[in-house]
């Protein structure tokens, strides 16, 4: 299947010489939720801005819906929606007007029923006649989302949609994003909450210093890079480990009272191994009085990846 969005060798050097994007290649599949993760200043916003026409790329090509964006930008842009990271709104405008305006700006005929539907889905209907400046930050972000949805885009960019949003609203947002996916909208989002990517995304891309480090299915990434960690506490210190236990990926602490297992692959294999390890300990006559087991999250993987590369570049 042809990707809905294809970025090739995209480079952006800002005035002043900062290379915010460094030969980025990325393909987004139709209908997926793609999470772009990366530390501050990694280039996430720049990447989105380049695709949406806010930033002029220094080099490379972008095509959406099979069309080169530098040529057929009109038809492509009318199918792309953007929720920016910054809360930029016309403070004096009323909510409903602002959303209807967005629909018109993208070339569609007025459709009050659709606008009502969108406002209701974001719990903004009650606020429709309020000036945007009178809304709270989280509500303003919803207005931005409503504006981005007003022209029923097929491809939606959400640049940190849940930044500064409370837990409840975040859950609502997740639900909404899920619903949009049901309707066939392809979604690309950035976030600093890795659990969010873990919860929602089909695929995850990790970007650092303008370079895409890794793009993979969330599950594949977790099983490839995921780890199980188990700390087994021993009531009495042991001097060494018998051979059949030493074959496991284990290390014994200096005081001999803690056995640390680190292995598996994020698919559950680790847990099974830990279970076998405990049986082996029993057979070897080594007593234990506590097991603390922990599956690594996407967050651990992310932190490892980003830090590992930081170390490399030093």
């Amino acid at each position, binding site marked *: 299947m042809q990707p809905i969005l294809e970025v090739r060798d995209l480079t952006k050097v800002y*005035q002043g010489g900062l290379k915010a994007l460094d030969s980025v290649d990325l393909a987004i599949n139709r209908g997926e939720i793609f999470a772009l993760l990366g530390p501050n200043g990694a280039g996430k916003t720049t990447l989105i801005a380049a695709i949406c*026409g806010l930033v*002029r790329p220094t080099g490379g090509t972008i095509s959406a819906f099979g069309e080169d964006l530098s040529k057929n930008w*009109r038809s492509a842009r009318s199918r792309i929606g953007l929720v*920016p990271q910054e809360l930029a709104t016309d403070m004096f405008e009323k909510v409903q007007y602002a959303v209807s305006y967005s629909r018109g700006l993208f070339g569609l005929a007025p459709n009050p029923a659709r606008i009502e539907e969108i406002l209701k889905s974001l719990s903004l209907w009650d606020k429709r006649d309020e000036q945007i400046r009178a809304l709270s930050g989280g509500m303003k972000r919803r207005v931005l989302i409503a504006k981005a949805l007003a022209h029923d885009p097929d491809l939606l960019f959400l640049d940190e949609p849940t930044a500064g949003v409370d837990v409840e609203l975040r859950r609502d947002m997740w639900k909404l994003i899920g619903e949009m996916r049901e309707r066939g909208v392809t979604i690309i989002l950035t976030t600093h909450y890795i659990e969010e990517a873990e919860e929602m995304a089909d695929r995850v891309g990790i970007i650092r210093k303008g370079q895409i480090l890794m793009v993979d299915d969330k599950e594949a990434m977790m099983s490839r890079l995921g780890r199980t960690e188990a700390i087994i506490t021993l009531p009495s210190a042991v001097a060494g480990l018998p051979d059949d236990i030493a074959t496991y990926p284990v290390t014994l602490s200096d005081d001999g009272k803690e056995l640390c297992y680190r292995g598996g692959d994020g698919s559950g294999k680790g847990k099974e191994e830990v279970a076998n390890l405990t049986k082996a300990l029993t057979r070897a006559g080594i007593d234990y009085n506590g097991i603390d087991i922990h599956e690594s999250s996407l967050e651990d993987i992310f932190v490892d990846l980003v830090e590992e590369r930081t170390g490399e570049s030093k």
Partner: protein
Amino acid sequence: MIGFNFRSTLAIYNRELMRALRTAFQSILAPVLTTSLYFIVFGAAIGSRMPDLGGVDYGAFIIPGLLLLTLLSESTSNASFGIYMPRFTGTIYELLSAPVGVAETLVGFVGAAATKSLILAAIILATATLFVDYSIAHPVLAIGYIMLVAASFSLFGFILGIWADSFEKLGIIPALFLIPLTFLGGTFYSIDMLPDPWRTIALFNPVVYLVNGLRWTFYGSSDINIWVSLGLTLGFLAICVATIAFIFKTGWRLRE
């Protein structure tokens, strides 16, 4: 770049016009008040001691100049604010990501600013009837000329709004150039009244040509040949359009 998005254009136009009307008091009432004051001071107080100029009563003589004073400053400031504010607040992201090009943006923003100027011009002409008797010799040409000036200076304001990267810069061009040039441009007098070195120097002031062009459409006579005036105004319009085309092509100050 093929195609023209009418709905987008209309959306921008309506929104900009609404924005202008949201501040109806300051944007419509203020110029009316100022113009009335000019009529009282220049028309009634000073005008009673002035001779007729080219067979035109002094009160009537200053109408085209007063109109231009408002047209130039309002068109420039409306259009410049119209595009500067979204840049300043960041809401320009939406425009940049929308399927609209130069044509839609220009017709929307500049059209709305020019429309507002035209509404103001009509109000000023109506206000003028309260103070002086006047009749317009070439009404169709007058309307055409007013529209041309409104459009040209709205375009100019648009460029200013894109060029400016601070509120200070936004205000400096009107304060430093536009207003002085307008006052010195024969708004309240005929440049034939000036002694010679000044008369020649005045001919370097572009506003002189605008004022006299408009005055010709009103009273059939002016200090300067109407075709010269019209030619220069159209030339100014062309320069503005070319500048804007360049801005959009390079993305200057709009896209990083």
